[in-house]
Structure formats: structure tokens, C-alpha cells
């Protein structure tokens, strides 16, 4: 009897250790992507870092309840999207509090272009274009922005986006279409 309970305790400890290792691997794999999505959504590195940590903390607390019905990435992205929504809702509710934003300027955000072998003129044009996309993204609604970023920055499939956002695929397509139209309009209007 005692031997049996000791064995059970050992098994539990081993299972916990395995779960911890699994979770550590999930964090290592998906942290950059979650951070990137939150950074592009908020344009605030510190806030993105905080929300990323909150996301993984929440995921760790609920790791046991994750049944693997969707991929870990989809599940984590869903948590991140909800955290981001909560953050903006709280800021709107607490408008009388001191809520200073550290979001970087759109110009600064568009400065990050990978150094290729293109000419200075091409680089300048690309910089300007990326800036225009940022302007369009800033003007999008929260849902459109989320869907747009998941699709064109994170390169997620429509079905994955639908699962992450909790929307139907049709709605995702509609949001994406409107977002793209806005980007086109921004690019077309400032040629």
C-alpha cells in the first residue's frame, strides 16, 4: 500500500517534470512569435514584453487544461489576443488615470528594414511604403488590425486565424478584405 502511494507520488513528480519541460519548450518556440504579434499590435516594446509574459503566465496556469485540440501556437495566440483586448478595454475604462503610452512613432516603426543589396533610393521608397502600411494599420479597427497582422506578418492560415480570434472564417475573410482595401487605398492615395 505504502509502496504503491510512493510510486504514485514518483509518477506524479515525473509527470510534472515532463509537463514543465514541455511548457519550457513551448515558451522557447513560440515566444518570439507572440512577442512579435503583440509588438506590431501595440507598437510598444515594453507593453509587448509585459503582455507576452502575462500570456505565458496564463498559459502556464492553464497548461493542464490544454487538450491539444488546436495547436499550441493557436491557443497561445488566442490568449495573447484576449490579453491585448483586455489591456485596451482597461485603458479606455481608466481614462482618468495616468495612462502614458510608450508606443513608438510610425516613422520609427517603419525604420526597421532588413539590409539588402538594394540601392539607397529603393530603400527610401521601401521605407516610405512600409510607413504607409503602418498608417493604414493604425487606422484599422481592432479586429481588422488583428486579422491583418496575423495574416501578413505572422503568415497564419485563415482557419488558424479563425480559431485564434474565435471568429468564423467568413468573418475573417471580410475583415481581411476591408483591411487590405484600406492598405491599398493608403498606398494608392500617396503615390
Amino acid at each position, binding site marked *: 500500500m505504502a509502496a504503491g502511494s510512493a510510486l504514485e507520488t514518483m509518477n506524479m513528480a515525473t509527470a510534472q517534470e515532463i509537463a514543465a519541460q514541455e511548457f519550457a519548450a513551448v515558451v522557447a518556440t513560440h*515566444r*518570439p512569435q507572440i*512577442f*512579435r504579434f503583440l*509588438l*506590431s499590435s501595440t507598437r510598444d*516594446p515594453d507593453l*509587448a*514584453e509585459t503582455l507576452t509574459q502575462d500570456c505565458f503566465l496564463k498559459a502556464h496556469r492553464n497548461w493542464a487544461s490544454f487538450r491539444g485540440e488546436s495547436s499550441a501556437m493557436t491557443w497561445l495566440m488566442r490568449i495573447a489576443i484576449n490579453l491585448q483586448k483586455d489591456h485596451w478595454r482597461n485603458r479606455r475604462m481608466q481614462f482618468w488615470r495616468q495612462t502614458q503610452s510608450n508606443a513608438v512613432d510610425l516613422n520609427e*516603426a*517603419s525604420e*526597421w*528594414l*532588413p539590409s539588402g543589396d538594394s540601392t539607397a533610393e529603393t530603400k527610401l521608397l*521601401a521605407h516610405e*511604403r*512600409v510607413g*504607409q*502600411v*503602418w498608417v493604414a494599420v493604425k487606422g484599422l479597427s481592432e479586429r481588422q488590425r488583428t486579422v491583418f497582422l496575423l*495574416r*501578413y*506578418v505572422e*503568415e497564419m492560415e*485563415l482557419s488558424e486565424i479563425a480559431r485564434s480570434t474565435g471568429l468564423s472564417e467568413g468573418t475573417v*475573410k*471580410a475583415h*481581411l*478584405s*476591408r483591411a*487590405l*482595401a484600406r*492598405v*491599398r*487605398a493608403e*498606398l*494608392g*492615395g*500617396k*503615390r
Partner: protein
Amino acid sequence: MNLKSKFEDQADRRNAQAGEASGVGGEVSDAELEQVLAHFRQSVHAWSDAELTRPRLATAARPSMMRGWRVAAGWALGCALAVCGVSGGLYEHQRQTDLAKVRAAQQAEQQKQLAAQKAQEEEDLLARVDSDIAREVPSAMEPLAQLMDADESK
């Protein structure tokens, strides 16, 4: 991942939106849009990678002097406003009560004066009537009355 495939499933929607886009400015070709979005993606990836590798200073949140002062000033201002509000209300109430009292006293005084005036007028009227009645005598007795007046004058 090839962005072209992503654009294909939206071609019909994009065509519908083309009018909207062209209304704002010139048309943007699919290839150009694809390139711009690729640059945008690369830009975000580069920025994110740079931010992830950037060393961060973890500073413990300590209650700053400024913040303490701000909270204290906020409380003081709040208390002062509350006290001002309450005392203002009380003062106004007291003023209204005093005014009402003065008005009531003035009205009472006026009514008193009116009553006295009325009483005086009535008294005068009665006296005049009395004197008129006392002086009036039937015409047949007029000569006698004149005699009496003459006697009185003597």
C-alpha cells in the same frame, strides 16, 4: 510562404473593393502590394528580433517622491473641495433661512402698518360721520339750531 496564394482567395473581394481604392488614388498592382507587404513583414520581424535581443533593465517599482506628493496633493485637493462644497451648502442654507426670516418680519411689519392705517382711516371716517350726523338737524328746526350756535358762540 508564397503570398500569392493568400491573395488568390481574396481576389473576388478585392475586385469589389477596387472601386474604393481607385476612388482614393491610383491603382496598386498585386505584385506591388505583395512586395510592400513583404517589406512590411520583414520590417516587423527585424524590429521584433532587435527588441527581443535588446538587453533590458529590470527596475523594481519603488514609490517615487513625486508620486507620493501627487497622491497627497490629490487627497488634499479632494478634501478641500469636499469641505468647500459642504460649507458652501450650509452657508447658502443659512443665508436662505435668514432671508426668509427678514422677509417674514418685513411682511408682518407691512401688514401691521396697513392694519393700523386702515383702523385710522375707519376711525376718521366714523368721526366725520359722527360730526356730520351731529350737525345735521331737520329743516324745521333750523332756526333753533342757529340760535343754539349763536348761544355757543357767545
